[in-house]
């Protein structure tokens, strides 16, 4: 098999994942795109390992071992990532990564809005206590 087939497919899949990471708004869809990029890397590793293990006699099968490690790390990553997304959703009520701008700099208009928002909610909580 020509080596260009798996490598071109891996490059296209990686760029598809790159587009998804940059363009998606939901955090879980971003995680899906990250999985696509990891799989593209895995395909590259397997293709190069098959090529090199046939080209040379003694090989450590490092590509396939590294692919297994990548798959395991991807499983760990998706578990931790989903736990973080769920914690954010519990605290904020949204998994929209465009709204997580607490540490953003250079957007001064965000400051007064969030201040007014928290002041309003604290005010509402106070009134709720008064009426209760």
């Amino acid at each position, binding site marked *: *098999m*020509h*080596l*260009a*087939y*798996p*490598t*071109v*497919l891996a490059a*296209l*899949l990686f*760029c*598809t994942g790159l*587009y*998804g990471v*940059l*363009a998606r*708004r*939901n955090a*879980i869809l971003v*995680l*899906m*795109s990250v999985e696509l990029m990891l*799989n593209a890397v895995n*395909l590259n590793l*397997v293709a190069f*390992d*098959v*090529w090199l293990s*046939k080209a040379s006699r003694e090989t*450590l*099968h*490092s590509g*396939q*071992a590294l*692919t297994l490690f990548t798959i*395991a790390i*991807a499983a*760990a990553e998706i*578990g931790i990532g*989903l736990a973080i*997304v769920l914690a954010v*959703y*519990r*605290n904020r*009520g949204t*998994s*929209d990564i465009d709204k997580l701008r607490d540490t953003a700099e250079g957007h001064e208009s965000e400051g007064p*809005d969030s201040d*007014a*928002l*928290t002041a*309003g*909610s*604290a005010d*509402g*909580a106070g009134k*709720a*206590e008064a*009426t209760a």
Partner: protein
Amino acid sequence: MTFAAAHTHGFLSPTGVEIAFLLVGLATFGAALVTVTTRQLVHAALWLVVALGGLAVEYLLLTAEFIAWVQVLIYVGSVVVLLLFGLMLTKAPIGRSPDADSGNRWAALTVAVAAAAALVWVVVDAFRTTWVDLDGPAAGSTAVTGASLFQNWFLPFEALSVLLLAALVGAIVLSRKAKAESSSPPVNSRAATGSSPSVPDSRNHPIEGNGRVEGTNPVATTGLTHAADAADAADAADAADVTGSPGVTGSPHAPSPTSTAGTSPAQQQEGAR
């Protein structure tokens, strides 16, 4: 491999395995494109299954059968299920959601197309005369992979098991922290109706903060009338009362009944709106 081998192959006479690889690769690439462009979030996860399964078939065509079955087991079997659970736990909309893509879609498309063009050009130019020899014994059978993994890669393998354990503990800690904050509904409802003067507390609070953020304009929120606030407080108290008995909420997205207590009032308020 070598130039001698290159003369025996040709660009315009693809072998059967190349044709199969090309067809499965087209299906995989198409499924990946639909995954990153569809507006239905659950469909994105299901198309991701097609893409990952197609990649497993590509591994089989590359004679890496152990990797192929690991791919099917871990990715299709567990990662996609985890993603679907995540979509349901965050109450992803079932139908078409118009705001699935952010505003910088065209910039992202430009970057991705430029990267794809550069990568494909470099890869095709670099491996123009390289052929993979797929004849003979499989390069990635279970015996070969196991022997190399446990002879040459034993220490990284064990380190990886420690990493998986750390990830497991980390995921449990991340989930349990949120549960400990909201595991006692009476305290939570008291905090909901009581005053919460500190800013992080009021912002992080599941009822007041999220309801306001999700629902209305912040400026309108500050101008709410007293009656509306009283109604809100009554809503919050009702929701907290309902969640006092954790089984009643019946929310299908909780790993344990007690963990729904904190999230349910906000979600019920969202549902009410």
